[in-house]
């Protein structure tokens, strides 16, 4: 009994050490990729801005100051002010929170949905697989932005509804990925061993197949985040995302649109923020794919 417990604890410790080592090797390989590091740095800055926004922002992002409305970038307002005299720099800092909120909401919902659908379909096979994959195909075949637009039109504008709409269009690729991975491992010896030991199908899917799909899903997730940001900004720009006075970047561009020819900074600055952040996610995603993608690694 004690011996068994001991070996159990020992094997766990070894497992943990092995995982730590794997992570350390990954981190070292990642650090050698300059573009990936730039992406990581951009996202670090974004995260810092979002967390520290009230401390970093020199002005109140919501407080109008009509005397200083539409003033150009300068010493007092680094990136200028908008049509109500609100400081654009402060608004962009606070908008970082909204951007992270949307990305977080979409990723936290769409990836698990896709993962479960794909893993279950791939493991179960048969008609379950056929039905799930048909549904996935329908979602994949329909243009994403339009579908999101139609969903928001039906649900009503708002930041949560926008995230929900993007989720509904974002999960199918994860399902495809997870299914492909599940198909590879579902008949492997270790899964059969669990089955022989009496593990339920539920346990097999959630404990033994889904973890195997994780790495490709994570890579895909990082690559998708840039697209999510752009879609969310697009919804905000059309006027269906976050509503004023929220400092959402897409909505800020939308209000700045009227002044583009004379007060160019109102629309340009938030757009630059979107561009830099989505560039950061793209750089990080590319680096992660090069490092983690099992297909690429096998070829190398």
């Amino acid at each position: 009994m004690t011996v068994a417990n001991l070996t159990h604890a020992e094997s766990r410790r070894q497992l943990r050490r092995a995982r730590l080592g794997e992570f350390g090797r990954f981190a070292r390989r990642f650090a050698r990729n300059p573009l990936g590091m730039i992406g990581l740095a951009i996202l670090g800055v974004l995260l810092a801005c979002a967390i520290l926004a009230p401390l970093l922002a020199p002005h109140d992002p919501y407080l109008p100051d009509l005397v200083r409305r539409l003033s150009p970038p300068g010493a007092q307002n680094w990136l200028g002010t908008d049509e109500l005299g609100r400081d654009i720099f402060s608004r962009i800092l606070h908008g970082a929170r909204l951007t992270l909120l949307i990305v977080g909401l979409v990723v936290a919902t769409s990836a698990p949905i896709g993962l479960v659908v794909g893993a279950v379909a791939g493991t179960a096979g048969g008609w379950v697989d056929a039905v799930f994959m048909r549904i996935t195909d329908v979602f994949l075949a329909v243009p994403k932005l339009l579908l999101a637009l139609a969903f928001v039109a039906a649900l009503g504008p708002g930041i949560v509804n926008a995230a929900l709409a993007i989720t509904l269009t974002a999960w199918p690729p994860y399902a495809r990925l997870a299914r492909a991975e599940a198909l590879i491992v579902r008949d492997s010896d270790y899964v059969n061993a669990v089955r022989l030991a009496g593990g339920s199908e539920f346990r097999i899917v959630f404990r033994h197949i889904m973890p195997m799909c994780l790495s490709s899903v994570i890579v895909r997730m990082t690559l998708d985040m840039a697209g999510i940001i752009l879609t969310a900004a697009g919804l905000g720009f059309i006027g269906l995302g976050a509503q004023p006075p929220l400092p959402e970047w897409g909505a800020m561009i939308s209000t700045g649109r009227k002044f583009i020819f004379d007060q160019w900074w109102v629309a340009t600055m938030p757009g630059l923020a979107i561009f830099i952040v989505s560039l950061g996610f793209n750089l990080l995603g590319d680096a992660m794919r090069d490092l983690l993608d099992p297909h690429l690694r096998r070829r190398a």
Partner: protein
Amino acid sequence: MPAVLFQRVLGFTGRIVTLFLTVGITLLGLVALTFCIGRLVPIDPVLSVVGQKASEEVYQRVFLEMGLDKPLWQQFLLYAGKLVQGDFGTSFVTNRPVLSDLAGFFPATLELATLGLLIGTLVGVPAGVAAAYWHGRWPDYLIRFIGLIGYSVPIFWLGLVGLFIFYSRLDWVSGPGQIDVFFQGIVTPVTGALLIDSLIAGEGEVFGNALSHIVLPAALLGYYSLAYISRMTRSMMLDQLSREYVLTARLKGATEYRAVMLHALRNAAIPLVTVIALSYGGLLEGSVLVETVFAWPGIGNYIASSLFRADINAVLGGTVLVGAVFILLNMVSDVVYQMLDPRSNLRRR
């Protein structure tokens, strides 16, 4: 897999039949999706037809006429049946059938997206080939960098910046809209695409003005698709260039041009058909944002402005139309791919 068996047994016809079945099911799924979205809307569909002031009697009659008392699946069949007959409902805003609205706006979108795709392909494919040929050297980095920016930039913002620089400051192009007011209504619409119509009518000035209006949005959409097309071309060309047949060609003394452009590119070109078809679909979708920025009288603008007036029939009609075009494009690219690829069964019969 019964589908595979089906294909083996029936060969060519079987493939075509399965293809049509798949497309049919996908289209049905699309319709089911829009139907569900239509049910989600918190607006009372009857009220939007009869108006707020209608009497109880009228309300009841319309309620029954619209089949809202029937079970959901019957309502769905009714809806799908109407769609098949081309009845997309009536737009609450324009008070015209949605289909005729869509037909009026579609050519402008098609014109813009086609020109965008043309630019994207004519620049993107050579760029991808160059990047693959000079793999790991500066042209490769440059092209990948340009592509990366295309992936990361919000296209509507780039449109605004483009308008600010090229229209407001440099005055190289004309501003938003399809044509100046001065030139409006000179050309009788034949195809609906102004560039072609003005050429047919022989109105050089109108053509020039329309061109100066379309250049910027088309270049934007072109850049948007270029990012994707050049990336895919690069990876396919890299794959082909490492094959032994290219080495053989070079060993036999073929010129670099011959080995790359005639041998490798021809093989990479087959999957590129799918890539280009997909980006065409993407452009139709991306035009929603670009058309909003440039006040382009196309389907994207129509959908976006209908969204604000809660004109759900128009929104869903536009979604169904663009979605169907998207799905059909996929199907066509599938067929073309199989016809071009000598390894596919279609040719062997």
